[in-house]
């Protein structure tokens, strides 16, 4: 595993000192890989917990408990944005919120809430931690989730496989036919 994956694993395992130590050595591509892995792990964890559907009560309740745990002042984690993020992860074609831009050029998520990249990464990190805490996953479970996320997001190297078949295997579904779209 490369350093971004190890750093994210430290965060999920609660090893905050190791996480901070690894972050200090990050280069620009490492930060971007970290954000990719975070987005992938968040996507998988959300789809493992929630079923797509019109009932939003569970999403609202989950975001409320996550804010209660990690943001008791209620300032950092915007509830509308966090709920939109979870709902977007359940869509078949999630909007590209990860490709956000600097703070001064705020992104409009669902045309309503201005969000910076920093706020997006913070929200994804906190929601992912809350999801895994609720599930009670072990360190091995976290490692498996990150491995699946690593296969889900496109690797940085040009010659590496995108691993669609392995992702399908993780989700206990049939991989698409070789000639299919």
């Amino acid at each position, binding site marked *: 595993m490369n350093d971004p994956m190890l750093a994210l694993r430290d*965060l999920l395992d609660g090893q*905050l000192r190791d*996480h901070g130590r690894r*972050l200090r050595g*990050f*280069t*620009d591509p*490492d*930060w*971007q890989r*970290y*954000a*990719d892995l975070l*987005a992938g792990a968040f*996507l*998988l964890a959300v789809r*493992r*917990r*929630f*079923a797509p559907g019109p009932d939003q009560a*569970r999403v609202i*309740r*989950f975001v409320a*408990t996550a804010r209660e*745990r*990690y*943001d*008791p002042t209620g300032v*950092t984690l915007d509830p509308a944005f966090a709920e939109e993020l979870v709902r977007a992860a359940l*869509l*078949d*074609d*999630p909007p*590209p919120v*990860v*490709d*956000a*831009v*600097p703070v001064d050029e705020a992104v409009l998520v669902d045309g309503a809430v201005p969000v*910076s*990249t*920093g*706020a*997006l*990464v*913070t929200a994804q*990190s*906190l929601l992912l*931690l809350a999801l895994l805490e*609720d*599930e*009670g996953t072990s360190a091995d479970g976290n490692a498996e989730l990150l491995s699946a996320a690593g296969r*889900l*997001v496109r690797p940085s190297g040009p010659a590496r496989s995108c691993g*669609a078949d392995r*992702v399908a295997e993780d*989700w*206990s*579904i049939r991989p*698409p036919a070789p000639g299919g779209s």
Partner: protein
Amino acid sequence: MTGLSTADYHDHAAARVAEAWQTIAAHSTQAYTGICVVCGRPGPCDEQRAARRKLARYAGTGPSPEDAVQSVAESLDDLRTAWATIIVASDRAGAQAHGSGLTRRLAPWQGALTECWQALGLVYSGLTEARRDPATPGGSAGELLAGLHAARADADRAAALAAAVRLRLIVAEDRLRRTGSPAGLLAARRWGAAVRRLDLVAARLAVGSRAIQRYADSLAGVSEPAPPRPPSRCTAPAEEIALGVRAACRLVTARRRRVRPGFWRTVRQRVREEFAW
């Protein structure tokens, strides 16, 4: 005891055993569809079960493994009823004992609630294992799907119950917190802990339900769409990502300090609790 002589009884038993074998052979379950070829119902059908029971009785071997598994499956309802009864009893006793100092003595009841849940989980897992055993051919695809559906329904019912209790606890916690008395604050804090525990129960039930749904879909041949890929690569500047990650780390660290306080903070909290009592 029967009024038959030994020879007559032997003939009678041999005839019943032969009939049972014929029934079992006729009412066979089609492996592909899991349907009885005679009855058209999910197999093994009632006739085949009765024949197997008859065979076991005349062969003197006691209940067959299939019957044993079936009896356990039928006892699930009793376990669910017991769980519901414990909830009601605990609820009533808690309401009566509130403020009378009996709350601590009622703690084992809460433990019984957990134990009952664990027992229910163990029975379900035991049934799953037993149905994998070739000696107990009772686990057709139809039965398995029905079992999964029942398990999901149980989980949904439990989650709804937990949500209702959670709302009542939140209201009570808020009410007691506003009294400002030490005993009220302590009770409010404990009910707050209970609310968080219920959140955990609801979250784990949701994860379990989702896993069951995916498994049942895969059994029924309904393939779930693969998770969509997140955008190909994050092109945001590294400084922005670092800002977000560090903000998250600060919040996680602050939360850890709240949840896992140091030694002296723990001592202060215990002293406050002692004085409250």
